[in-house]
């Protein structure tokens, strides 16, 4: 897209200059960590790939979650989401970039997924049964399909939203609603199957039909936590200082509370059902995660992703105070990352050290690069959808 002239209205909501600074720093940090990761990959490819998988799943969860929330908001309305729509859209537009970041996983597929190793499959009847689904070409084809669906809906929504800014066409609002309803259905299905492919199939014998919902709910929590942190920073300066009000933060806090509760609910349900059934093909997954340090890591995840945010977010005073709310959101993000790590790594190597230096390096590398891409996209538009029919309501008594 070529540079175009901004209208005076758009100009009023132009992104502040400090975003450039943050973007440069994120990019520098990302490149530096990426170089470190490359060194690590040469030294120990196995550790690199597992760290990469967890880092990738963590970072893609944020734009995917924000993309899902933006569709939900198009359908249900609400001022909380209107003032954040440009953050949703900028995050959605980073999905092509994440599709590129998926490529290293293809390179490491044999290191990560046992079902991709012919010699293992040849010896396992179960893997042969699952082969029509768990095989390399189909795995790749499905990944293409997932990204294709996400990009289609995300880019179309983002484009119509920009058209709304320029043309003030009243039909666009309705069109975005309809697209969002279809998109949400497609998103639930594709994100679920993506979780089966990328994360659950690390242990190809294990399965849980709740896994997809667990994954999507985790996205939701991470997305709201990220949103809180960013809206807090954006609301510190003009133009967003006049737009985002404490009641919006109150809503974000409630949403985060709802998602950490949902996360605890689905995590516990899955555990309870598998524990009481006690079937060898299912319980092994949890038995592995009860050993040694994994048990303690699981408790840390539970504390960061549920206990701590749950009790703190009950306070209305805290929810209306952006700085304190952001302090609650950060541990949720750490908890989300550790949760993915806890789900992924014991399937690969039980007696692995709990954390490897590469886990952090790769996380920072993908994160720095992604954040730079996100900020680059965020700057390209007015920070508020200026012609949304509900905007005046949302801005009232801000």
């Amino acid at each position, binding site marked *: 897209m070529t540079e175009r002239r901004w209208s005076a209205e758009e100009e009023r909501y132009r992104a502040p200059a400090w975003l450039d600074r943050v973007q440069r720093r994120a990019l520098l940090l990302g490149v530096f960590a990426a170089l470190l990761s490359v060194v690590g990959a040469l030294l120990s490819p196995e550790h690199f790939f597992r760290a990469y998988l967890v880092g990738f799943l963590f970072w893609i969860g944020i734009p995917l979650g924000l993309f899902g929330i933006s569709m939900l908001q198009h359908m249900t*309305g609400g001022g909380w989401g209107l003032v954040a729509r440009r953050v949703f859209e900028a995050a959605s537009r980073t999905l092509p970039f994440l599709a590129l970041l998926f490529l290293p996983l293809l390179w490491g597929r044999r290191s990560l997924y046992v079902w991709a190793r012919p010699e293992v499959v040849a010896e396992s009847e179960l893997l042969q049964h699952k082969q029509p689904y768990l095989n390399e070409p189909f795995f790749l084809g499905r990944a293409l399909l997932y990204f294709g669906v996400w990009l289609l809906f995300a880019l179309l929504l983002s484009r119509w939203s920009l058209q709304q800014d320029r043309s003030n066409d*009243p039909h666009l609002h309705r069109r975005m609603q309809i697209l969002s309803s279809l998109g949400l259905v497609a998103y*639930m299905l594709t994100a*679920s199957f993506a979780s089966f492919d990328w994360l659950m199939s690390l242990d190809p014998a294990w399965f849980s*039909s709740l*896994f997809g919902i667990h994954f999507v709910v985790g996205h939701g929590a991470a997305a709201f936590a990220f949103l809180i942190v960013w809206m807090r920073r954006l609301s510190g300066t003009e133009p967003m200082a006049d737009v985002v009000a404490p009641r919006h933060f109150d809503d974000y806090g409630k949403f985060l509370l709802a998602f950490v509760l949902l996360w605890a609910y689905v995590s516990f349900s*899955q555990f309870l*059902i598998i524990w009481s*059934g006690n079937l060898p*093909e299912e319980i092994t997954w949890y038995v592995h995660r009860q050993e040694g340090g994994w048990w303690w890591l699981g408790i840390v995840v539970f504390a960061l992703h549920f206990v701590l945010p749950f009790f703190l977010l009950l306070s209305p005073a805290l929810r209306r105070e952006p700085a304190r709310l952001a302090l609650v959101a950060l541990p949720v993000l750490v908890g989300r990352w550790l949760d993915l790590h806890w789900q992924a790594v014991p399937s690969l190597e039980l007696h692995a050290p709990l954390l490897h230096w590469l886990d952090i390096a790769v996380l920072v590398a993908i994160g720095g690069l992604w954040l730079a891409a996100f900020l680059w996209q965020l700057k390209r538009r007015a920070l508020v959808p200026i012609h949304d029919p509900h905007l005046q309501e949302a801005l009232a008594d801000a």
Partner: protein
Amino acid sequence: MADGSASVTPAAPTPLIAPGHTTASVTDKIASVVLQRTPRWFYPAFGAAFLLLMLFLYAVTVLLVRGTGVWGLNVPVAWGFAIINFVWWIGIGHAGTLISAILLLLRQEWRTSINRFAEAMTLFAVACAGLFPILHLGRPWLMYWLFPYPNTMSLWPQFRSPLVWDVFAVSTYALVSLMFWYVGLIPDLATLRDRSRHWFARTFYGVMAMGWRGSSAHWHNYEKAYILLAGLATPLVISVHSVVSFDFAVGVIPGWHATIFPPYFVAGAIFAGFAMVVTLAIPLRAVFGLHDFITARHLRNMAKIMLATGLIVAYGYVMELFFAWYSGNPFEQFMVINRITGPYRTAWFALILCNVLVTQLLWFPKVRRSVIGMWIVAMFINVGMWLERFIIVVTSLHRDFLPSSWGMYSGTFWDWAVLIGSIGLFLSLMFLFIRFLPMISIFEIRTILPKRSRGEVS
């Protein structure tokens, strides 16, 4: 409507309440349903429901005298209609709690017109639901054995069994729903006390209103209690049906042992509940002329919730099918094949038709706007959700691990009599409620009036 609450179409928001109403006209209109003479049609309608209730009493009497053998239960299908009906009824109740508690916390003002009778529906549905497991005990008079109480028989419930959790979940649910409903009724009972002319009605409503005078202190306490009860009821929407799903999922029977069961059951419950609210709301607003309060917008919003929860249920079906294959477990695979091609295949296809295919009609605004269309879709869902529980309970049990112990199951006359009779119990209670209590919350409708007129001025 400043924040949070969704206004569906921005250009021309359909009003929550038809224009032209004042505080007085709202009170007159809703209170008159209760205070005027009984309309003629009420007697045959209530009479029909009452006849079904008598059928229920007769069927239960036969059951108690002759034993559970009059039902079609046997090994291998030892959980038949009783459990199906229990899950069906308790699911129907969930819409009431969702409307009254969750939509209140989400500041969805449109709930105001439907919350009262949806809550009543919850109570009556839970009453129907609660009877079935008790009747299923065989010796229902010993039902107190389910509670952990000190006794000389060394009898203690097995706390690892979800059936015991059910006892607590359902009784808590019934209690909280009752309190919520009653607390919400108090200001309206006072209105009726002040408006009724007959000494008996005045005394009756006066006692029920517990001395409500509408002072600001009363309102202050009231608001606090109501929000607190809403907070208490909200987790119950999720927990009750999750516990019901554990009844199945913690076992290792193929088709029952699936981790997706809790959220899938909860979505199914809300789906069924909204279908029942629509089933009741459409005739009620027609016979009492309540179109001004239960507007097209209410029906449309309910249609959207039905579509959303219906899609979650369909997602559950997709996951069931996929994981039966993916698990590599031959029993799970057989269970699915047996559902689709076995002796109960007609029920399975009917279930898919009702819950998945017909529900997709709600995508079309034309269907959502059509009162008849909505009612027909809701009836399909009512039937579909009963069939779903039938499929889950029966197909998993009738052919499990050992072919030598396979068997068939069908309901006997007395099974059907209890099911149809329980609908009579539900409808009788519903008719009495409509006749004696305001089915729409008068004071809450009043609170959304001035805000609306303010909106029109600006």
